[in-house]
């Protein structure tokens, strides 16, 4: 804790560095934070909305998918960057001491900026389709972002600590994230899952978060409190166990990296 206070300015500059490094020598720069979810939305709308005719809870498929793609993009990008972060910062890790969790924390923290930009775009697209967030539901948004960050941090810490020992993680992470996307109500609504299996399905902590975003912004149905509660519980378990595992491995990073 004392360390965190000492090094909080380092985290700030680390986040800035990561953002800068990500968009350096790109033509669009931060525009990619906008384009990435928009392009995904277009592809999903054509293939899943139009061709496969997947139901979308009574709202137009583009808005339906974008409301899920925005938080998902944050999760997938941040967890992915976090997984590789220790490996790509090995050189510093073997030379200088600072709390190691700052390295994966940086893409997770910095991703929040991208998330904010993407949320603004989402609100714009919603307005284009005649959707405006209304008061009781939209208040859920900060709670959902909190759950999203908890889950992302938990997964990110696990992947980062595993990747520094087993480089296999670098190859399995993209595959894992793709599989996870299909196991989360992103291209289809939560309602297609039979209600007696929904508790099992909600053990995936992203289920409650993604469904929550749709409910909060598009009012696609009632808030699934049990799913949301499971998101928090599973997310916290991931976070606590990930932090403990990370701490255990942290002490030998310089020796095994």
């Amino acid at each position, binding site marked *: 804790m004392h360390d965190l206070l*000492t*090094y909080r*300015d*380092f985290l*700030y*500059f*680390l986040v*800035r*560095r990561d953002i*800068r*490094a990500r968009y*350096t*020598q790109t033509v669009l720069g931060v525009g990619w934070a906008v384009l990435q979810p928009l392009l995904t939305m277009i592809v999903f709308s054509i293939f899943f909305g139009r061709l496969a005719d997947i139901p979308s809870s009574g709202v137009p498929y583009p808005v339906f998918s974008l409301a899920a793609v925005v938080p998902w993009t944050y999760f997938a990008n941040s967890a992915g960057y976090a997984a590789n972060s220790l490996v790509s910062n090995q*050189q*510093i*890790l*073997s*030379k*200088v*001491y*600072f709390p190691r969790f700052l390295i994966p924390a940086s893409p997770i923290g910095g991703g929040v900026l991208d998330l904010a930009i993407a949320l603004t775009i989402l609100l714009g697209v919603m307005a284009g389709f005649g959707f405006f967030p209304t008061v009781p539901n939209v208040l859920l948004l900060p709670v959902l972002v909190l759950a999203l960050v908890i889950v992302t941090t938990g997964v990110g810490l696990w992947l980062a600590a595993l990747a520094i*020992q*087993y480089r296999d993680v670098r190859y399995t992470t993209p595959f894992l994230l793709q599989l996870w996307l299909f196991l989360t109500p992103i291209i289809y609504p939560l309602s297609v899952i039979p209600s007696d299996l929904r508790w099992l399905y909600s053990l995936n902590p992203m289920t409650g978060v993604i469904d929550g975003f749709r409910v909060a912004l598009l009012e696609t149905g009632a808030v699934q409190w049990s799913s949301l509660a499971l998101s928090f519980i599973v997310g916290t378990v991931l976070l606590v166990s990930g932090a403990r595992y990370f701490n255990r*491995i942290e*002490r*030998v990073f*310089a*020796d*095994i990296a």
Partner: protein
Amino acid sequence: MSELDHRFAVRVTGLGKRYRIGLRFDREDSLFLTAARTLAAPVRNFRNLRRLRVFSDDEEPDVIWALRDVGFELERGEVLGVVGRNGAGKSTLLKILSRVTEPTTGTAQMRGRVASLLEIGTGFHPDLTGRENVFLNGTMHGMTRREVAARFDEIVEFAELEQFIDTQVKRYSSGMYVRLAFAVAAHLHPDVLLTDEVLAVGDAQFQQKCLGRMREVAGSGRTVIFVSHNRSAVSSLCTRAIWLENGRMAADGAVDDVLARYHESLLVGTDAELVHRADRQGDGRIRIVGISFRDSSGERMQTATAGSEVDIVLAYESGNERPVRGVSVTLILDSATGHRLATISNDFSGEDFGELPPVGELICSLRLPLTGGTYVWSIKARVGGGLADRVMDAAVLSVDGSEFYPTRRAPDIQAGELLLDYRWAAAEATFARGRESNAGTIGR
């Protein structure tokens, strides 16, 4: 914390560090076994990766102790030099002290803020500007943003980069990069500063500036631990030194004592050891495998008399067991405190060895113009201009007595290492009263 404890700045007790080194796997001799081995590879890989951090209690063949039973205590303001050969555990010690890695046994306590400069410029990002890197690097070493901001102008001035501070670091020359990196490091103001070979970078002028800065830091009551191969830097900066040999402490004491003992240790059995020296550079087209000093009658000696004729005999082997042409050999002479005294080579004297047999000796004859003391020789060999072999600190030669001057007297080493060949004469002053001149010649 008791009252007594307040004196120490660094306290290290029973420090040990264990590493696992890679052992070669056996190769299978049948296709079937090779295939089976390949299929089993993931299991074996998993076990090996895990074994990097999991140790069993009994001694295993692939475990080495990089550091064992190291202990010392530093008071605030002490400047400690750490010397030893490559692989003696110096870097491991600094890594433990800087908390980069954990010791296997023992503890290291440090009082106050610790800054480690294990490699200059670590963490600089090429896409960031000089200014951004100063903040990133300063906060990485535990400074707050405000502290960096307060010293920012000083840092930029020290680095002499005022005009380029908002340029991306990737556009810097390597010299500019190093200057900025050292400038940040030099302004960290830690209570304990750990540093490793950082002075080996940059041009000679900047090295001097860095050394001056280190002296300032050391003089301002901060505790410094300094690892270096630069003996003159160690002897001029440090008051105390420890000498590490195979991970253990071989000596701890006043800097001159420890340096002298360290160099004496290099003397023992040099001839036999030179063959086994692995810390060589060069492509190996020729290797110097032995060095000995012989007097005019061909007797080997470890102590030479100043002013006597000495043959330095280098035994060599050609890398491919065939004759070699175009060989040039350089001997570098350093004093025990690390001052470079001379570089001698057949290139300068213009001697060509022609075609050399695959195995043989090269002999350099000279008259030793040195005062009593110990001297360290390093060797370089080139073939056709390309570096073939280089061994630093290959041998030590003790010098005593003096036959250099006819009087057999000579100044001692505190008065300088070199004996020069000179003559004195007295002459009449041009406008003074005439007086008989009285000239004599000294030396040869």
